[in-house]
Every structure is written in C-alpha cells, then in structure tokens.
C-alpha cells in the first residue's frame, strides 16, 4: 500500500498548494488592477506598469512600493491608492474610486445619458400619440399616411 500512501501525500501537497497558487493569481490580478489605475509621476504620464523606460526616476520605485503595499495583508485597495496619492502626489492615481464621492465620477455620465434616453422615448411616444389623435380627429387613416409617406420619400430621396 506504500504507493497509495505516496499518492495521498502528493495529493495532499497539491491540494494545499492550490490555494497558494490561487493566491498568487489573485495577487497578480490585484497588482495589475491597481497598477492600471496609476501613472508614472516622472512626467512621462504613461500608465505605471507600461512605463519601463530605462532611466525613469520614478516607475521602478513606484512599482516596488506597489508590490510592497500589496504584501501587507491589512491594506485594502483604497488604502493602497490613498498611500500613493499621499506619497507620490495627486497625479499618481488616475482612476477615481468606486466608493463615496468618487463614485459620482462613474455614475453621473451614464445616469445622465439614461435619463436623456428615457425622456426622449417618453416625448416621442407623447408626440406620436398626439399626431395620431389629430389624424383621427381629421379623419386621416394610417393607409393615407403611408401612401403620403411613400410619395414624399419618393420625391425627396433619390
């Protein structure tokens, strides 16, 4: 049965390593996610993780600090970003957060567009109903409308 014991040991080791591997993936994803939200402050204005030009006075140090801050378990994403803002200046982080006041940056543009579209749909509906009501009152049927439309199209388009 020794082979069975060895296999068990291998399986146990593999199973215990799996979360570790997963953790590495999670860390990498978090590193890339947060790195994508920052820019190098050497004045090249490139995304931090893409700024790898030799001679850059900042990116190497910033990337090192990012890795170090991710190794501290208690650091949340917000903590890390705030730390960079504090230590490298406001221009270090170029993406607003998704909590509190910063959430407004994300919400306002799509909310406004949505409101405008809803308003447009309601208005068009109202205008259409008014036009139909007017047509019914004047005794103009849909068939007449369609015939006139077809004629107008023929005369105004090519």
């Amino acid at each position, binding site marked *: 049965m020794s082979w069975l014991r060895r296999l068990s040991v291998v399986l146990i080791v593999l199973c215990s390593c799996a979360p570790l591997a997963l953790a590495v993936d999670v860390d990498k994803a978090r590193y890339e996610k947060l790195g994508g939200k920052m820019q190098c402050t050497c004045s090249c204005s490139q995304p931090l993780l893409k700024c790898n*030009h030799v001679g850059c006075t900042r990116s190497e140090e910033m990337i090192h600090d990012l890795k170090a801050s991710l190794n501290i378990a208690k650091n949340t994403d917000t903590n890390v970003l705030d730390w960079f803002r504090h230590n490298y200046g406001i221009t270090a982080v170029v993406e607003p957060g998704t909590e509190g006041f910063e959430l407004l940056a994300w919400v306002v543009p799509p909310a406004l*567009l949505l409101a405008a579209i809803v308003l447009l749909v309601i208005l068009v509906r109202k205008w259409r109903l008014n036009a139909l009501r007017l047509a019914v009152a*004047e005794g103009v049927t849909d068939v007449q409308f369609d015939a006139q439309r077809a004629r107008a199209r023929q005369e105004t388009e090519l």
Partner: protein
Amino acid sequence: MPLLGNFCLLFSLALAVYCFGAGIVALLQRNPASNRLGETARRAGIGTFITVTGAALALVWAALNNDFSVAYIHDHTNRALPIPYKLAALWSGQEGSLLFWSWLLAGYGFVLRLRHKVDKRLFAYSSVVLAGIQIFFLLIVNMSANPFGIMDRVSADGNGLNPLLQYPEMVIHPPMLYLGWVGFSVPFAFALGALIMKYPGEKWISITRRWTMVTWLFLTCGILLGMHWSYAVLGWGGYWMWDPVENASILPWLTGTAFLHSVMMQEKRGMMKTWNVWLVFTTFMLSILGTFLTRSGVVSSVHSFAESNIGTWFVGDPTRFIPGFLPIVLLVCLFFYIKNRRHLKAENKLEALVSRESSFMFNNLLLLAACFAVLWGTLFPIISEWVKGQKIAVGLPFFNNVNLPAGLFLLFLTALGPLLAWRKTSWASIRKNFAIPAAFSVLTIIVLMALGMRPWVDAAHFYALTAFALGMLVITTITLEFIRGGRVLQGKLHANLLASMLHLLRRNTRRYGGYIVHFGVAVIFIGFAGSAFDKDTEQPLAPGQKMQIGDYILVSQDATIDDNANYKSYATTLDVYKGGKKIANLYPELRTFHISGRPDNEGQPDHIVANHSTFKEDLYVIYASPTQERVPVIKAMVKPLVVWVWIGWLVVVLGTVVALVPNAAPLRSPVAVAVSAPVFESKEMHPAGAVK
C-alpha cells in the same frame, strides 16, 4: 518693431470697438444714415484684420531677426532655431498664441464681411457679434498677455523653442486646431445674429452649416495631426492620452459633430431649431472654456501654458463682482433665447422611434453624453477639490471606460442611420436592408474568432471584436448604399456601375460625402481596435547584439553620438529581419536640446521615433536612453493596424471636402402634387435648403 506691434494692437482694439458700437447703432436705427454707419462699421471690421495682421507680422519679424529685447521672443526662440520654427514661435507661448487667435478671428471676420452681399442684414448682425468676441481677445493681448513686453536686460541668445515642438507637423497642427476653435465663432455669430433678428426662413442655417463644416474639418485635421505628432514624436507609442488640452479640443468637436447631424432635421423637416441654436452656442462656449482650462492653470496638463491671471478674463471673479467673458456670453444667449424663443418653434415633431430623425436624436444624445463625460472627467479634479478639499486625478482608464461604449454605440448608429427613412421606417424594411451588412458583420466575428480572438479574455479584446464587427457593418452599409444608388442611375445613364456611382456622388455631394466621412470613421475605429493587441519589449542593445519582438528581429549595427549647435544626438542603426529576410533599416535617435544658461548645456530629451509601418502593423522603435556605458537602450513595440487610423482620417477629410462641393447638377425638383390629406397642409415638408 515692438512699438509698431503695440500700436497695431491698440489700433485693432479701437477699430473692433468701433465696429461693435457703430454696428449696433446702425442695426437699431433703420434709416439711410444708419446704412452708411453700418458700412463704416463693416470697414472698421475689415481694418481690424489689417492691423492685427500688422501686429502678428511685427512679432514674426522680431522672431526672424532675433530681437531678444522682446521677452516673448527671448522665451520661445534662439539664434540656432530653424526659420520654420521661428515662425511657429507665434503660437508656441501664451501671449503669441492669443495674438494668433485674435488674428485668425479677424481673418474669419474679414472673409465674413467681404461676403456681406449674401445677406446684408444677417451678416451685419454676425459682424457685430464677431466684433464683440474680437474685443475680448484684443483686450487680453493688450492688457494682460501682451506679446511685445520688453526685457529689462537684453540677452545675447534666447531660451529656444520647446524641443517637442521642433517637428514639421507642429508647424501645421496648432494653426489647424486654432482655425477649428476660432472658426466656431462664425457659426456662433450667425446663430446669435439670426436669433436676435428673428431671421425669417432657414437660409441662415444652411450658411451656418457650411461654415461649421469648414471649421469642423480644420478641427478634425488639427486633432488628428496632434494625434499623429503624439505618436511620432513623444515616443510613448500612443496617440491619445485624454490630457485636459486634448479634451479641450475634442469637446467642441463632439458638439460640432452633433450639430452637423441635427441641422439636417431642421433643414429637412423644420425640427430641433432650439436644439440646433443651443448646439452652436454650446460649441462656441466649449471652445472658449477649453481655452480657459488650458491657460488658467486650473487643471494640470502636459500641454498647459504656465499658470497665469488670464483665467479671470474668461470666468470673471465673483468675489469682486467682475464678470468674465463666458458668463457674459451665456447671459446674452439666454436673454435672446428667452426673448425670441417663439421664433424657434418646431414645425414638426418626432413621430416614430424607428426613423431617420430618431437615429439623429440618439446620435446627438450619445455625442453630447460623450462630451459631458469628457467635460465631467476633466473638471472632476476641480469639483472634488471644492467638495472634498482633495484633487482627485482622472486619467486614461476613466475616459476609456466611459467613452468606449458610447463610441461603439455611435458606430452602430452610423451603420443604421442610412437605412432608416425620414418620419417612420417599417421593421420589414430594416430587416430587408440590414440583412447583408449584418451577415458580413457576423462573418467578421466568426472569422476573427477562428483566427484566435477571444473576446472573453479581457475587456480590450471584447471591445476590439465589437469595433471590428461594427466597423464592417458600417463599411458594408455604405458600400451597399453606393451600389444601390449607382444601380438606379445605371439604368438611366446607360453607364457602368462605377461611373454611375461617381455621378451619384456628384449629384448629391452632401449626402454621399457624409457617407464617405462615415466610412472613414469606421476605418479609424478599426485602427483604434488594433491597440488591444499591442506588444512591447525593451533592452540594452550594443552593436552586434539582437533583440526579438513578435516576428521581428532587430540587429544593432552601430551606435553614434553627435553634437551640433541646436542639440546633442544619440543614435543607432538597426537592421530589421522578418522570417529570416532583411526588411528595413531603422534609425532611432535621442536628442537633447541645448539650452542657453544651463551648466551642462543639455535640456529636455526628445525621441526621434523609427517606425516601420505596414497595413498590418507598425514596428515602433525608440532610443530610450544610453546606459552609463553609453550602450543604447532600445524600446520596441508592435502596434497592429495603426496606419488605418491615419488612412481613415484622410478618408474623413476627403468626404468632408466632397460634402462641401456644390452639387454638379441640381436634384430633381419635387413634382407639384395636389395633396388631398389635410394633415399635409398644416405640416409642410421643406426640401434641403429651402426658404419657407
């Protein structure tokens, strides 16, 4: 010369004030004497152009003659600067560029006032509005940002021009951008003038549309030249960074584009008059707002001019009750809108959600939403500072995430629009016309996924695949529109399909020119989508060594260091191999420009990019820096499809030029038909450009 320049500026201001004042008086009084007064105002406006030209020439003359007693010339030129860049000094600094702005505005006014016979009264109103804008800019250059300021002590040499601006495109890009920005003053002047005088009919809108198209073309060229300059000069491999100055250029472009679409609804159906007038107002105010943002120092930008006090001129100072130009413009627009809003009553209303009008409405909403998102992102740092006391930076990830979906939806509407009829379209007709483009689009998705594209891998791949599919949808739709129209004419002309399509284009330049513009936009989006597949690598590369990126192998042949009067140059020669075959020689270079007064005499570095461009991809190589041992560090990138961005741009320019050309032969006049249905008596239809 500085004295002459100052005199010209002061005289220009006096003439502009006269043009404005006398113009208003002439418009208020309706008698023969007022006509003569109006004529003198018009001539004063023309004179303004001549005197501002004198001031601009005085500054250029000072630059060409190394007159370093002028502070502006000292700060922006030096003796070694080549002549074309000395000319570019006119717009390379705050004071000079404001003078340049005034000169362009005076130039536009000059053309407008010369063409006054088109419609004397409307042009007189517009001339007064333009004179008002002219006064504002002349006040700034006379009182706050005078380009003829004198140095306390005359230096032997100047500081030189910013090295990044020492590139041929930089001699063209800023003037184009300024022509666009300043040009929006003309549609604004027409719109405000027409509103004030309650212009009868729709002629003013067709005049305004043509001016807007010309201006839009300049702005488009300016933006794309800037993108190309950023790509070819800055050495970061990208062309758009969502920098506040870039945003300032795109804001009026977006509203201007919206206007060029919605204006058709006014011309064809007498709809959206209020909307159009406000789009023109907004476009002008955004171009002024952009100027304020980039010159006042309220937002950080790599392009920004130094922080200065001219911001007060634009927005005023509420604490001291000083009104700024922007609030005054807004108040004037609001006043006349409220006073004369009845004149803007629409003759028709939207009748169906599935119609050409509705697609224009959605197109407008999306363009305005994109404009708002850009403005919101640009101003958010200021808003957050007011509210939270902390300036939150907003950059590339935010703008891309917010604007990409809007851009792709716009691309979809670009494909759908031509297939929709005015007033109402049946679903059966959409299905019939949309089947072939949709099939091509689906086929594109299948082929690309078969070739290895995986949209679920990340958002960039998803957006890229969507852009390719929608791009194909637009291209197929437009091609089919040309073929369909060509076939109709083929029978009548007895010519081949190509000749018929060409004839079709000449008969309705505006419509088919517009389609060509849309075609170009689709091509540009395809170029943008390529960025999802960028690759890059970097390493020191001594002579004889090689590096690989994608299918390319780069072999270093030599490394040189050179010095001349203007800059020090580090360069290397690279042989490029692909599939074992030598395909190109590249010479990436790093220049450090000499700055007078610096101990090491070396200033800002500038990358001269070496680019091997093909239809498939660009091999983009820069000399990043020398190591301590003087070994060149080479950064290489492979950037797929970038060339299509520039090709698409040329197509857009071509399309706009076509749309500006008058029709070769007038379109068939509508046949007089006795309309029996009473509904058409109350809701007449007006063909394009018709005067009611």
